[in-house]
């Protein structure tokens, strides 16, 4: 079993599904000969040809909208938006069409498409290349929002997203695209959507995250462990629809919860998790729910971005605060 990076796992899943299902087509800017700006589609053009690996004109509305048309006709488009900062022209299509086509035709037409985009900061990228705005999509009924946090989950969740009969916004954490390798078996086995993954079990505090921040969250758990604090780490993975089962079960055990995300604090997905904990898990809580998030400011450029992103220190501090609360 080969050890591969997260971005290589994305490529592996795309290649696997294109081989297995001829309805799958990949489209986007520079996804062809160039293999994508992050090289996520490397080799696909050579292997599957220009009809299935489609270099589109530079037009994000078109990329998403064309995917709606392809999907309604029974193809399985996997569209790439180069960076989350460029995804906004596609929101109209995702909100007004992809997310609603099945319902507004009562199942007559469907939209099994995937819109992939790298998200998050920490790679010293230019302006508009480091945003985490998953909340915008998580708020839209009819859409799934999925974010992997490891090569194996990137492979399994992307396969699941392509095979899913409904639209999925698949957000790939660019900061950990090449940070670390993991053995991934090209078995074609998908991981389940709509469930969170418990990455580490613990009994003292629940740490909840997704995407690249899972890395810092796991490091924070290691740090806490050295001090005898046993943290449980949950990767939400499917941000919307949000299944609280794993989080509620964990908090029932630990009584404490720290939510970690790169996205801005205000109305971040963490707020929804905290609210749901208040609704459905209040009696289990021994301490206030803490959130370690980006600030409610514009994502800063490279020099300051590490001060914006949730750090291991900040997560550890929040966990300690939670433990000290009661």
């Amino acid at each position, binding site marked *: 079993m080969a050890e591969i990076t997260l971005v290589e796992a994305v490529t592996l899943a795309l290649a696997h599904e294109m081989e297995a299902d001829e309805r799958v*087509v990949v489209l986007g800017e520079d996804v062809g000969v160039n293999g994508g700006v992050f090289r996520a589609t490397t080799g696909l053009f050579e292997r599957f040809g220009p*009809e299935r690996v*489609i270099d*589109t*004109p530079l*037009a994000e*509305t*078109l990329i*998403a*909208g*064309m*995917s*709606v*048309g*392809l*999907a*309604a*006709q*029974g*193809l399985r*488009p996997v569209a790439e938006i180069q960076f989350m900062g460029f995804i906004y*022209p596609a929101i*109209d*299509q995702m909100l*007004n*069409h992809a997310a609603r*086509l*099945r*319902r*507004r*035709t*009562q*199942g*007559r*037409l*469907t939209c099994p498409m995937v819109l992939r985009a790298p998200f998050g900061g920490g790679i010293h990228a230019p302006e508009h290349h480091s945003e985490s705005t998953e909340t915008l999509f998580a708020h839209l*009924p*009819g859409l799934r929002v999925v974010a992997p946090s490891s090569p194996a989950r990137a492979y399994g969740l992307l396969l699941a997203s392509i095979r899913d*009969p*409904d639209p999925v916004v698949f957000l790939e954490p660019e900061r950990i695209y090449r940070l670390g390798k993991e053995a991934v078996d090209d078995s074609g086995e998908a991981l389940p959507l*709509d469930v969170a993954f418990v990455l580490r079990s613990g009994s003292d505090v629940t740490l909840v995250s997704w995407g690249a921040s899972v890395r810092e969250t796991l490091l924070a758990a290691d740090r806490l462990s050295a001090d005898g604090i046993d943290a449980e780490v949950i990767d939400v993975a499917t941000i919307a*629809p*949000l*299944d*609280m*089962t794993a989080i509620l079960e964990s908090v029932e055990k630990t009584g404490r919860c720290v939510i970690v995300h790169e996205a801005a604090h205000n109305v971040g997905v963490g707020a929804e998790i905290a609210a749901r904990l208040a609704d459905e898990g209040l009696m289990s809580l021994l301490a206030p729910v803490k959130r370690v998030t980006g600030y409610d400011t514009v994502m800063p450029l490279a020099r300051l971005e590490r001060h914006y992103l949730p750090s291991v220190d900040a997560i550890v501090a929040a966990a300690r605060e939670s433990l000290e609360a009661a």
Partner: protein
Amino acid sequence: MSLERIGKTADRRAAPTRTVARFGIRYTRFLDERGRLADDAPPIAHDHARLRELYRQMLLTRLFDRKAVTLQRTGQLGTYASSLGQEATSVGIGAAMARDDVLLPTYRETGAMLLRGVEMRELLLYWGGDESGMDYSGPNAPREDFPICVPIATHAPHAVGVAYAFKRRHEPRVAVCVLGDGATSKGDFYEALNAAAVFDVPVVFVIVNNQWAISVPRSLQSRAETLAQKAIAAGIAGEQVDGNDLIAVYDVTARALERARASGGPHVIEALTYRLGDHTTADDARRYRSEEELALWRARDPLKRIAAYLIRAGAFSDDEEAELRAELGRAVEKAVADYLATPPRPPESMFDHLFERLPRALEPQRETAAARAGLDGHDADARPSHDRRPAHDAPRGDLHHG
């Protein structure tokens, strides 16, 4: 071809500045305003049986339209977008399409939709506030046609995707995207035209230029002499047609479809017509346009034009017109009765078809919706249908643009 390239000159002493490309826009009309046929008319002009059939569709569209407005005015239908005056364009497009082509309409393509097998009852359900109206389920339902697109021009990229799928599967089918004059100001439209040309896919865009986007006239929408010429920037042919001339709309559309089907390439048609009604039932067009203008276009009524032609040709008569009106009127009334007799679906049905299978996370909300309905006594199923006044309940919201 309206697109004419001027070859590079071999003359090395050519002027430093020269014309490298030159374009033109063709305009087609076969029937004049009094229904007189031009000399070089296409075969459809002499197929009187077929034209009578299409006139019947135009009349049905108009009678349905009038009824829908009346239903709205009497509180029995939600906001409705009338297609009054645009029947030749809509029916002409629908008639030119093959059964398995795919129509991507806006909210004013009642004529094409009815012709393609969408039922009047379904359109009434849609405008009456029930999504099941877009689940075309009649015996001749065009199951692959897209539902009415409300956000302007956002369906143009869909047409490119649909046409790409046809091309990839080597199917001789065409996607027909119908949009308005206002839509040509939007980026979606340009992005779609551009991509359609790049991918060389079988799609025909029909710009229904009805002169008004709600209150904004064509002159404020664009300074381009024609909207058809917007195709040229994308490298595809564009042409104009008299949208109130059924024969011309049919012929121009049929030719564009034939070309697209044969060679896979896209095409743009601008149909010049006029919205005789308000933008929707929530609009009052008297606020922004003159009675003189309206009178001018009333005189160009597309139904009168084709009827006059058929009567002159001896293929139709006033008596037949009266019979036809009575017959179609009964069909419309039947559809209205069916619509009014259709009870609203239970509140929890709003969760149906959201996903193929409702995610577990949403199950509690679905249960809440069902339970609340019982508690609040909002379960309208028990009430007779004529007691329901969707238009009164519904906000007086208007559709954006024209």
